[in-house]
């Protein structure tokens, strides 16, 4: 319960105007700090409860999480989140709840599905990083080309780190 309240409090601080504005104005901060932080805080606030009755193999939580990520990675969605406060708040809530539901789903997801999902996610974020680095024009209307390239670099770095962690996780799981 304490973990839940702490996560909610930190999430509220993260989306409060001065911090939210600071994070929203730069693409790398928005994509690489605010969004993952909200997902993580939602996950930490989540409850490990048996939801297999309506969440077979964790699918409902995984689909909701995936849909959330896909939707808010669309450049137009990011633009609207920066331009319109109401859409920004919807994004914050959506990210938090996606992390929240993922917590109760993750233990239900089979090992192979987790593995394949992670590989796909790493591949997608690498592809996105390459696109942001190399595309000669803006994908988002509210950010500059330089910010786009920075975000591309950041995504490639994060993909590499996640890949290494994934390899350690596989080795650790196989050793068991």
């Amino acid at each position, binding site marked *: 319960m304490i973990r839940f309240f702490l996560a909610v409090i930190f999430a509220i601080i993260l989306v409060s105007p001065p911090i939210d504005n600071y994070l929203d104005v730069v693409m790398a901060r928005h994509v690489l700090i605010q969004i993952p932080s909200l997902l993580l805080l939602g996950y930490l606030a989540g409850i490990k409860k048996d939801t297999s*009755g309506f969440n077979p193999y964790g699918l409902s939580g995984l*689909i909701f999480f995936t849909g959330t990520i*896909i*939707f808010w990675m*669309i450049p*137009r969605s990011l633009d609207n989140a920066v331009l319109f406060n109401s859409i920004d708040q919807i994004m914050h809530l959506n990210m938090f709840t996606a992390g929240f539901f993922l917590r109760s789903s993750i233990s239900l997801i089979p090992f192979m599905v987790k593995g394949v999902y992670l590989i796909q996610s790493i591949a997608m974020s690498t592809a996105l990083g390459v696109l942001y680095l190399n595309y000669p024009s803006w994908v988002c209307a509210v950010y*500059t080309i330089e910010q786009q390239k920075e975000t591309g670099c950041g995504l490639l770095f994060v993909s590499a780190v996640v890949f290494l962690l994934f390899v350690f996780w596989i080795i650790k799981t196989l050793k068991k």
Partner: protein
Amino acid sequence: MRYKFFKWIFPIIVLITWALILYWWTLGFKALTVFSYSLKAAGALPRAVPNISLVNHLGKNIDISTLKGKYIIVNFIYLNCPSVCHFVSSKIAEVYKNIEKSNKNMLEKLVFITVSFDLERDNPDLLYHYWLHHGALKEWQIAAFMPNEAPFIRPKLEKIGVYIFRKPNGQYNHTIYMFLIDTKGEIVNVFDPSGDAEDIAIDIFKVIK
């Protein structure tokens, strides 16, 4: 058995809901950026171009409607752009030279117009220097909106399918597409200048028979 089926209903509903939301938001998975969204939202091709009154780099007034009878490639920039607009202009110069090299007669039917939407800063003098810098190509006009068009610039650009966003520092992010207007004054094709200049020239040839 019934219970086993029931537990699958929820993830199916979540999947269908997200698929529908994404389909709606991206106009059928075809518009991921505000630029492509504005283009699609402007309507299907061919579509009419609103009448636009411009002043070109030679200080001459031109009306898009008076150029009916010629094919027009039009795109939109502003001269204080730090990078992208100059990349697009360089690409246009490449396309022009490609057409000139392959079929010079085509240039009698075709005119390139690059329009600045930055009324505050871009005047005919600056447009002229920009035209000189990019090769002073005969059938390429660098123009700006007439001052009396100021209240109508955004609605007219929206009708064409162009999105512009002015950032707090005075810079703009905007659509970079090139629009091919036929002799009847209708947009018949849209090109992404990030593509190959030769491919763009070939696509233009296909339309201008």
